[in-house]
């Protein structure tokens, strides 16, 4: 008998993976911009966090365009963390675009085009637009999953107002977002018809007496009146790049044949700049300069740097934040050496924030935060780190690198679980420390055994000639 394997249906809300910086929720400053020692996932780096706070205020004011900041420091000193902290504190309404320096090298578009697109993605325009929304109380949601576990789900949603009732067919994306928002019968929701965005307004008053466990924050609202579909003016933020794309698409049926690749004509951009300025003067739109974050900025070459120089002078320019871990090195595309691999004329425009290596105490705290984060997300609350193991891990963090120590947390956790322990002991740490090499030990190993590796001689010969 053939048994079809039914894949486990997992709740979408739970799939949140742990990234390197997912524990950061802000810069951890108080109202006077004084950094707290440990707050919002940030530890130490007091001076640079304070500096970032000043920049943050500048961005929030929104009056200054075309400023650039460079965060420079050794590897693993929290440069990206600071940038993420700025992004988190800005909130969802200010555009924040992050890219790595090597991302702009593509065969499909030129470097400067990629950079200008990134610049324009980082500038928001708040504008009123009329959209069609559906607003009503949920009567019933019915979602049918195919018995085999694969294939499209089908769903039906019945919505009502005080006057009418309508049944809607749901697409796959809609079903996903409905279950993500945990919409259930009795909720009053609005759906943006064009984008499919769902907003939960609250629960209907008619359901107030339901015997149901509800959080204290549940709001009760009236069932909407009149028609289900309404036209409403909504204020939303779009980036300049999105407006570019809308206006540069080939109209009519030709749009079917032209893929959405690449370069946007400069005429289109100029037209849109003029239009946006017009809207701003008429009071129809508001320009929100956002933040463009370029990580590993030393990967850019000379052409890009001179483009940046010029782009920063435009009045429609976001705040540019760059990060690098290089010292005095060659500027790509030239034979000149320069600090951080950035030409002096661009460096001259920058405000530079330096990060310094973490102290032992700070390392300890970061490891603790990461540990909590790891075990909390994995719902393995009964696994803990013993005091001695924590100390050992901190020492490893100080002697090798913070990143390596963080890697060891998760691996040691796994080892501990395999031996059915409840607390990560020093032996677990020792075990994984012997299993996985850190960078220094790996280099050491290379030096000792390089003769037995492949291509060894040819490489040595090359090194001699250079």
């Amino acid at each position, binding site marked *: 008998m053939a048994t079809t394997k039914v894949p486990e249906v997992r709740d979408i809300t739970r799939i949140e993976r742990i990234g390197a910086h997912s524990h950061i929720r802000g810069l951890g400053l108080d109202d006077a911009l004084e950094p707290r020692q440990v707050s919002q996932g940030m530890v130490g780096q007091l001076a640079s966090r304070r500096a970032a706070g000043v920049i943050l205020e500048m961005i929030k004011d929104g009056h200054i365009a075309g400023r650039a900041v460079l965060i420079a420091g050794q590897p693993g000193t929290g440069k990206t963390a600071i940038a993420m902290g700025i992004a988190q504190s800005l909130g969802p309404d200010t555009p924040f675009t992050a890219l790595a320096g090597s991302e702009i090298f593509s065969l499909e578009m030129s470097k400067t085009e990629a950079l200008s697109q990134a610049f324009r993605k980082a500038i928001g325009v708040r*504008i*009123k*637009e*009329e959209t069609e929304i*559906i607003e009503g109380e949920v009567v019933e949601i019915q979602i049918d999953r195919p018995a085999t576990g694969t294939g*499209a789900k089908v769903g*039906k*949603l019945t919505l*009502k*107002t*005080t*006057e*009418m*009732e*309508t*049944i*809607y*067919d*749901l*697409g*796959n*994306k*809609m079903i996903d977002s409905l279950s993500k928002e945990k919409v259930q019968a009795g909720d009053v929701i609005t*759906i943006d*018809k064009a984008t*499919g965005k769902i907003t939960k307004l609250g629960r209907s008053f008619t359901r107030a007496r339901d015997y149901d466990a509800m959080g204290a924050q549940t709001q009760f609202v009236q069932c909407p009146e*009149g*028609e289900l579909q309404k036209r409403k003016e909504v204020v939303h933020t*779009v980036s300049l790049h*999105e*407006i570019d794309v*809308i*206006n540069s698409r080939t*109209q009519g049926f030709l749009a079917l044949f032209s893929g959405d690749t690449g370069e946007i004509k400069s005429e289109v951009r100029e037209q*849109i700049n003029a*239009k946006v300025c017009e809207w701003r003067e008429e009071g*129809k739109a508001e320009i929100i300069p956002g933040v463009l974050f370029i990580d590993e900025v030393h990967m850019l070459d000379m052409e890009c740097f001179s483009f940046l120089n010029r782009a920063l002078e435009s009045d429609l320019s976001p705040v540019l934040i760059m990060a690098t871990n290089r010292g005095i090195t060659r500027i790509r595309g030239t034979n000149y050496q320069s600090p951080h691999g950035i030409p002096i004329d661009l460096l001259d425009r920058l405000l530079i924030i330096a990060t310094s290596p973490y102290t032992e105490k700070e390392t300890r705290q970061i490891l603790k935060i990461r540990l909590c984060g790891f075990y909390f997300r994995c719902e393995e609350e009964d696994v803990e780190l013993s005091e001695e193991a924590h100390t050992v891990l901190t020492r490893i963090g100080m002697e090798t690198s913070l990143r390596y120590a963080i890697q060891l947390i998760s691996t040691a956790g796994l080892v501990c679980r395999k031996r059915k322990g409840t607390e990560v002991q020093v032996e677990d740490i020792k075990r994984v420390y012997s299993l996985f090499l850190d960078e220094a030990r790996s280099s050491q190993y290379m030096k000792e055994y390089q003769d037995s590796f492949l291509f060894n001689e040819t490489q040595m010969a090359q090194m001699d000639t250079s």
Partner: protein
Amino acid sequence: MAEQSWIDILKLSKKTALIHDGKRKIHYLFTDGKEMAEEYDLNTDELIVRKWRHKSTLGAQSQWQVEVGEPLAGPVTSLDSDVIKENCANPVFMRKDTKIAFQWRIRNLPYPKEVFSVFVEPSERCIIIKTSNKKYYKKFSIPDMDRYQLPLDSSALSFTHTNNTLIVSYKKPKDILTLEQELQKELKKLKGTGEGDINCKTQ
């Protein structure tokens, strides 16, 4: 005065006519960038389709919005589209005019006639259809009357219900009838070309 203005707008617009499939098709391009397309039956001169299209604030071309005639089936929106759409069992609202009346048909309404109440709301310049079983509700205006800025009169309104279809009629007032006849004459003067590319005929 106000009547005049809509006619002026029509006169100023760029019109293109085309006779195809037993229908006279006219495309209007207005000075503010809006577009209107109409189709008339060649024999009876009845209006079959009137639809509108305009550009959104951000510059995107929107879909055609049907004012009169069968609602368009979306261009390539397949059945398993990603977002949301009405189930086919829901009431379908459409306008289909006759010579002497504006008429709306709402299909898929399997309720007895007593359930429905249709009345004019003069303050909001619209007609409201209500159901006592709270299954259907619709508020709509008559764009033609708005364009000529004529008041709505509840005595001109009537409705019937047959074959699961609710038919609401509103008798066209005299002004509209004469204006429509005038417009017909003008449109017939437009040289309708056959098929293929045609030169835009401007008045």
